[in-house]
């Protein structure tokens, strides 16, 4: 009785796999556009690690260098830690972003569209990977400016770069879960902070574990931020590398295995 044509279900099903990628890229486009409209976020998320670099390099660096193995300048020890800290702090933006999309009703709208279920999470992760890649690249340049030197060649540095982005990808599931669970941008921001303290500060990102009390050393030596920082260090400073990178990648895989299903389950339950 009306001129409405119902789409053939077979066609929809056949396209599903390619649309998942296409939809994720559309959402990523949207998030990157949004980031470009809020340059202050980029500026501050860049200034903050730069301040860390200056602070640790010039304020604490002198006092800390004594604890380092012979022949390693503190700045070379520090910069890999800064890179890991940068991607870890950077990935908290995902929690804020997801909470924001939930609060404004955008996620509800997306759920009524004929788009892939995975695209909202995947698109945001892709956009944040792009942003973090830029910030890490910038931090490498900042490192060079304050005296950081690589000792294992450019390919290894590139490997370190990829490892950092892999770690950020893994963390994005953790923070997506937090953002969707909290559901409010400010609360999400607040919720990520204790996690930062436990993960980033109680780690070997800025100082070697040898100076810490025994109980803390046991933790700091065996947690993801430390293991990724140690792997990045091995990649840029040289020395035994394969084992450390393997441990770092295992952490990444473990985090994804645990948190990706949690984030997806959370996403299905909201709205």
């Amino acid at each position, binding site marked *: 009785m009306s001129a409405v044509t119902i789409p053939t*279900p077979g066609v*929809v099903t056949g396209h599903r796999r390619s649309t998942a990628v296409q939809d994720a890229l559309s959402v990523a486009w949207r998030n990157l556009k949004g980031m470009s409209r809020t340059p202050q976020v980029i500026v501050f998320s860049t200034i903050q690690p730069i301040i860390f670099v200056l602070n640790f390099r010039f304020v604490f660096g002198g006092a800390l260098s004594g604890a380092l193995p012979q022949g390693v300048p503190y700045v070379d020890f520090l910069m890999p830690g800064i890179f890991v800290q940068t991607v870890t702090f950077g990935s908290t933006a995902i929690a804020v972003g997801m909470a924001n999309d939930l609060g*404004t009703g955008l996620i509800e709208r997306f759920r009524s569209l004929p788009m892939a279920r995975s695209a909202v999470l995947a698109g945001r992760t892709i956009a944040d990977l792009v942003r973090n890649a830029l910030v890490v690249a910038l931090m490498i340049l900042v490192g060079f400016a304050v005296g950081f030197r690589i000792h294992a060649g450019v390919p290894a540095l590139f490997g370190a770069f990829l490892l950092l982005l892999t770690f950020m990808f893994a963390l994005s599931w953790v923070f997506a879960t937090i953002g969707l669970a909290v559901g409010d941008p400010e609360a999400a921001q607040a919720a990520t902070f204790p996690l930062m303290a436990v993960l980033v500060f109680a780690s070997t990102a800025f100082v070697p574990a040898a100076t810490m009390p025994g109980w803390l050393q046991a933790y700091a030596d065996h947690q993801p931020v430390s293991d990724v920082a140690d792997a990045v260090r091995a990649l840029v400073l040289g020395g035994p590398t394969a084992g450390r990178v393997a441990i770092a990648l295992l952490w990444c895989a473990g985090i994804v295995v645990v948190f990706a299903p949690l984030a997806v389950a959370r996403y299905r339950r909201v709205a």
Partner: protein
Amino acid sequence: MSENAIEAVGLVKRFRDVVAVDGVDIAVPTGTILGLLGPNGAGKTTIVRILTTILRPDAGRATILGLDVAERPDDVRTIIGLAGQYAAVDDNLTGRENLILMGRLTHQPKAAHTVRAAELLDQFRLDDAADRPVRTYSGGMRRRLDLAAALVHRPPILFLDEPTTGLDPKGRQDLWGVIEGLVADGTTLLLTTQYLEEADRLADRIAVVDHGQVIAEGTATELKARLGSTIVTVELGDGVDVDGLKGTLASFGPVTLGDERRSIDVKVGDGSRALLEIVRVLDRDAVAVEGVTVRSPSLDDVFLELTGHTAVADGADAADAADAADNTDLDQESLR
């Protein structure tokens, strides 16, 4: 194909042990508008979420153009458009970019994205603001963009969840005009509202929803006729023995006191005759009266009759209450 574009039978949705939707049947013939009218927390939004595949019903089934929402959600999503009560558009994108994003996510041909966006921006009088970030838009502009975003893929079935909640009277009138234009195109529309005036003006048929159930359904005229009577309102002057008069008038029909005991409503069977007799009584007893009016029952009266409470507690605070409700709707729905 079924005559009804939207059909639901026995829908039930529970949130933990709370029943938000409690056995709802809905039928919307193709090309018509159904208004779901009810107070906040009545379950309207939950019904819309089920029909738009966002929530799965715990019981019952619903079809859109014959497609089951629970069994074929992907197919249903290609033929529906949803504009929720949040004005769910991206603040950081421009109006145009928001519409292009919708074009991409609904898988329109690539060449059509910008053309369709321009068309809708023009239709919704947003062309001047098209390339400004949405965060600079007024409330009314956001709602218009939100509605435009729901139309990008030309869905034959449209769901509008409280499209004018929180808008000022001008913005509301504005949006009503736009919605009327849509239906002239033959779109089937399900609209939820807590404003009786809105349902009366826009909807072909109205389903009154309360506590998760449809408690009455019909055209506005049919619903008003269900009261089967006329209302005579006596506006009182100063120094009237209100209780005494209420007792006297009770002989004509059920009486209710108005705000601040300044008026009395009498529900009567035959309006004109009752009016004459009431005026005679008032004159005989020398009651100070500021006015006497006869009116057909409004949807407000219908609502009061059907539910025992008014749709919106206080007209003046309605917009505020609706705004507050906007933010807490999910909680309310799940707490109910």
